[in-house]
């Protein structure tokens, strides 16, 4: 029955234009019950750290005492097909069932119990057909049941709709007050994300501000623009690159579609089969149905593979570019620093303002009579004051570098200044290296060289003069030089590129990561063109190159012995949709300064986990080579887990890890901890400091009130942000035989956020996750196959 209930509810969500069949909240995955040591308490409170008073964006949901939801099954005799008709027939009896109801066509939810367990009602269709409707009570749901939680979310969406907010994708937006950024042809709508869930002690609404970036142009406009930019030859490719994967809105309905393909052989005069079986052309259809005249009859047709079935339509949907508007940002736009800066002004709200905007939503709800009536009818209400509680800030970490110990200002979470000019833990000499540049960049190349010679001695990097090679600014020219000049003794290849054209970069990386495994460093000429920043840039490049060659920069104190830390992240190719890449990074030494890196490249439909298992095996072998024994503790930080995938992870991936460990040897049973890392969470925390709301300081740990009772989970705010609100990272320990106290797991996690060598500061996730992300991204974007294993003991992908 349980399964039926939830499938019915998902239908209900569908009807409400929630539109998603997946359970995004991973309800019903109860991992804590298997971990005895956190059964009683999973908080690290009163172990370490100082207290901090926090407010959050959660609001308590309250209901009448003895509140329950009544679930009925509704049957029709004779059987009625159309859901609309089923609803209409049932609602002829509002005097029996009441005005307050939620109905998906077969399951009916009511806030009250009907007189009888089985109620028979009689209706008549317009055609005069008599229908018997049987309404049978199937369930009495307590407020905390998973079905009820889903139901709350549906009701809440209804409320947002009543407030005249527009649904786009999963969230609701206010169209009446858009911010427009004409320079980039963008429009930003302010809206809200919301979810109602069972948290530690209460059912709460988590509401956050969401910004939707919309574009004033149609897909056809964009195509014209692309055409004017790239010309005829590269036009189709450029369109595919720019458009596929984007979400569009249409002129005629309130749906969003993902562009999966462009059909260049079709045009608006092409025909399609309507649901009634008749054939019509797009031009005719849109004219007839929506009175829309398609003006350009030569444009191609966009293809969207519908994931869900809506009505009779299934499979690919054809869309006319002229009638589609773009939403969201392309990767190209995300990489456009100026655009992101202009956007950030509007989207990065500081804590006070963010909380005020969230408060605005709550006040809409509180003040709208219809909304209040709906809530009252269901017997529900909200506590309109955000929940506040106490979190704690764990002790700051000390940074060690070649026998020196550094403190840094915890407010900035950055030690760039403190460690400048200090010898590295392990500096790899650059005895033999190449510097490749075009004629135009000759001066820039020399500037870089001079600067490198200036900054490297104090870091302890020994550097010879490079082999300087001038090339034509063509991909083949670069490749030819690489083939001729790179020898097995080459430490590193530095290429100065004149533009951020991806094909050149890809070709260089591909060659030097696969065919000829040598670390490489590409630098954009523009980055080196400003005299005032050249020293900083050169320092950064020197550090980065050193890591790529196997150098070590700094470390933090790691109290655990014989431990191997693993980080996993995934990259999914959104453009071609063909590949998924999992980056796998595992520590090699006690100080966690050296890492073993591999990745798994899988085509669509294959499971990544099989490859991950093989990675773990080689990682263990390498660890034992370095340490002359096997690790007694293994921590896996698993990033890249989508909403609703937790179940798969718990039931499939973790057992595979265990299998893998078992296969090493019968007497080998290390302690294993698997932690799911999530960066995209709606929870926000605000520290109450000096009467105002501020971002919580780095090291803030939250493991009460807003965590989930069925999980062993916690939040850490590790990084700082200059603008806007800091996003906490959510950690969910799904498997743990470490016997460590939650406090220790939390602090280990926080320590790991200090170990990412491309940033001399604290980052959002444990370093191995960020390394894994970097690796997967490089492979997914540029290399498309597994890099040469010769490189696997270095951070060549930084």
């Amino acid at each position: 029955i349980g399964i039926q209930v939830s499938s019915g509810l998902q239908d209900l969500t569908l009807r409400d234009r929630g539109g998603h069949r997946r359970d995004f909240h991973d309800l019903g995955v109860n991992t804590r019950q298997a971990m005895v040591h956190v059964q009683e308490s999973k908080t690290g409170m009163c172990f370490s750290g100082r207290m901090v008073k926090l407010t959050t964006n959660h609001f308590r949901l309250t209901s009448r005492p003895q509140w329950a939801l009544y679930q009925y099954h509704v049957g029709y005799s004779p059987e009625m097909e159309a859901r609309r008709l089923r609803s209409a027939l049932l609602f002829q009896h509002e005097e029996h069932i009441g005005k307050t109801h939620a109905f998906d066509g077969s399951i009916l939810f009511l806030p009250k119990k009907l007189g009888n367990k089985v109620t028979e009602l009689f209706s008549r269709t317009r055609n005069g057909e008599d229908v018997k409707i049987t309404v049978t009570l199937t369930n009495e749901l307590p407020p905390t049941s998973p079905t009820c939680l889903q139901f709350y979310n549906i009701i809440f969406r209804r409320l947002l709709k009543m407030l005249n907010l527009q649904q786009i994708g999963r969230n609701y937006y206010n169209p009446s007050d858009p911010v427009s950024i004409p320079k980039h042809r963008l429009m930003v709508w302010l809206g809200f994300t919301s979810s109602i869930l069972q948290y530690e002690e209460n059912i709460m609404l988590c509401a956050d501000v969401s910004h939707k970036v919309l574009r004033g142009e149609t897909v056809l406009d964009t195509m014209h623009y692309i055409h004017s930019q790239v010309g005829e030859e590269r036009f189709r490719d450029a369109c595919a690159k720019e458009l596929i994967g984007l979400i569009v809105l249409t002129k005629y309905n309130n749906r969003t579609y993902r562009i999966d393909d462009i059909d260049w052989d079709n045009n608006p005069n092409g025909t399609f089969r309507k649901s009634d079986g008749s054939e019509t052309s797009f031009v005719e259809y849109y004219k007839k149905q929506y009175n829309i005249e398609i003006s350009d009859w030569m444009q191609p047709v966009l293809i969207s593979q519908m994931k869900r079935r809506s009505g009779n339509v299934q499979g690919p949907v054809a869309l006319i570019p002229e009638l589609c508007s773009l939403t969201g940002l392309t990767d190209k736009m995300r990489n456009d620093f100026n655009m992101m800066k202009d956007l950030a002004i509007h989207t990065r709200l500081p804590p006070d303002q963010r909380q005020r905007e969230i408060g605005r939503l709550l006040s809409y709800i509180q003040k709208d009579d219809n909304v209040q009536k709906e809530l009252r009818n269901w017997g529900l209400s909200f506590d309109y004051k955000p929940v506040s509680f106490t979190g704690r800030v764990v002790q700051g970490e000390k940074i060690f570098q070649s026998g020196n110990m550094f403190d840094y200002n915890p407010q900035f979470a950055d030690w760039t200044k403190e460690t400048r000019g200090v010898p590295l833990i392990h500096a790899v000499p650059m005895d033999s290296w190449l510097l490749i540049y075009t004629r135009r960049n000759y001066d820039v190349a020399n500037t870089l060289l001079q600067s490198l010679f200036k900054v490297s001695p104090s870091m302890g990097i020994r550097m010879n003069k490079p082999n300087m090679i001038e090339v034509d600014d063509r991909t083949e020219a670069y490749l030819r030089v690489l083939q001729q000049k790179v020898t097995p003794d080459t430490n590193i290849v530095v290429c100065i590129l004149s533009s951020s054209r991806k094909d050149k970069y890809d070709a260089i990386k591909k060659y030097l990561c696969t065919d000829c495994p040598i670390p490489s460093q590409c630098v954009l000429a523009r980055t080196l063109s400003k005299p005032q920043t050249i020293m900083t840039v050169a320092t950064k490049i020197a550090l980065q190159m050193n890591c790529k060659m196997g150098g070590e920069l700094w470390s933090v104190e790691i109290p655990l012995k014989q431990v191997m830390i693993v980080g996993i992240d995934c990259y999914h190719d959104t453009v071609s949709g063909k590949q998924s890449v999992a980056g796998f990074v595992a520590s090699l030494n006690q100080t966690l300064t050296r890492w073993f890196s591999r990745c798994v490249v899988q085509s669509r439909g294959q499971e990544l986990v099989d490859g991950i298992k093989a990675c773990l095996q080689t990682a263990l072998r390498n660890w034992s080579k370095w340490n002359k024994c096997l690790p007694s503790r293994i921590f896996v930080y698993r990033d890249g887990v989508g909403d609703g995938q937790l179940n798969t992870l718990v039931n499939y991936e973790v057992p595979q890890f265990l299998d893998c460990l078992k296969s090493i040897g019968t007497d080998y049973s290390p302690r294993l901890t698997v932690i799911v890392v999530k960066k995209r969470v709606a929870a926000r925390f605000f520290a109450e400091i000096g009467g105002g709301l501020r971002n919580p300081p780095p090291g803030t740990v939250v493991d009460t009130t807003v965590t989930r009772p069925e999980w062993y989970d916690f939040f850490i705010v590790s990084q700082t942000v200059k603008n806007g609100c800091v996003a906490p990272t959510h950690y969910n320990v799904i498997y743990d035989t470490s016997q460590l106290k939650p406090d220790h797991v939390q602090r280990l996690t926080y320590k790991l956020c200090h170990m990412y060598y491309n940033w001399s500061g604290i980052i959002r996730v444990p370093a191995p996750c960020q390394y894994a992300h970097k690796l997967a991204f490089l492979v997914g974007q540029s290399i498309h196959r597994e890099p040469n294993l010769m490189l696997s003991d270095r951070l060549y992908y930084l």
Partner: protein
Amino acid sequence: MDKNFQEEFTQIIKFTPPLYKQRHQFVKDLVEKYKPKKVADLGCADCSLLRMLKYCSCIEVLAGLDICASVMKENMHMLSPLPVDYLQPSERSLTVTLHHGSVAHKDPCMLGFDLVTCIELIEHLEEPELKKFPEVVFGFMAPSIVVISTPNSEFNPLFPGVMLYRHPDHKFEWTQAQFQSWALETARCYDYSVEFTGVGQPPTGMEKAGFCTQIGVFVRKYPQTGESVQSEKPTEAVYKTVFKAVYPSLKDEKYLQNAVISEVIFTAQIIKHRLMSKHEEYDDDDPEGKSKFQPSMNCFSDYLGKLVVEKGMEPFVSGNEVYIPLATIFSFPKVNRLCGTFEKLCKLIAGKVTLSSDGSAVMFNIEDEDE
């Protein structure tokens, strides 16, 4: 009529497209023909007819009236503007309003309409309401055209199981003669002409039964009443407004200004981009691409193709700034269409776009150049 024959018949009476769609199509055709600006649907129920009518580009005011507020409320969101309506405001203005009230009552909000539709409405009216109905619709609202549809009871024997009426809420169902005599009398009384038609063709051999839905189209014979006459009609508002949506439109200065600013800056960016890449091209040692490009003759005409560059209209670089003359921007078709006149363009962007000191060109800093 042979009973068996009739029964055999009843099995196959199914209209394609469904009858309600045919009724809606009938109204739509009427709208296409008369191009009314203001249309009211009395008894709008689930608002499906209104939803279809909002796509008719001649209509600027759309109103619905129903005695049942909850059915309107359940469906009113379908009448809200779509996100795209905000993104690309349309040329026409459109206001959609839903009122809760009875057709037996007069409310000034129903004055001044060109077309009033009463689709499957009158048969739901009780005797006293039906009596007041002609005075309210034809006497008070007095639109140029009224459409009334109602079931034709002569068709009912062809349906299985229809005992008395087609729907339990129907108070009556008229024969063709009954409807026509009521309609003719009403038309005569309020100085309208009326023509009869219908949708739902009777099956062959049964033509005498008439259309399944009978329709009367009433056209007012006297000319449009002036404002003065309307104001003489003393009435208070009795309807309750349950929904009102004003669609974003370029007729609204706010949206027009936004659209113009956005288009001006965007156009200027394109010109600037082209200017800068031209500058770079000289020392660009990339032999592929650009030079080979010729404006194609296929569907994708060059975005900038229509640009006419006259003297004094060329964009130029001076120091750290790029200047793009407004005249050049104005020559772009989209900007041109939006503003109409050059003066209007200047007025709309005043203070919103950075201009050169004499106000003749859009000015950008080169430092912003992004790649």
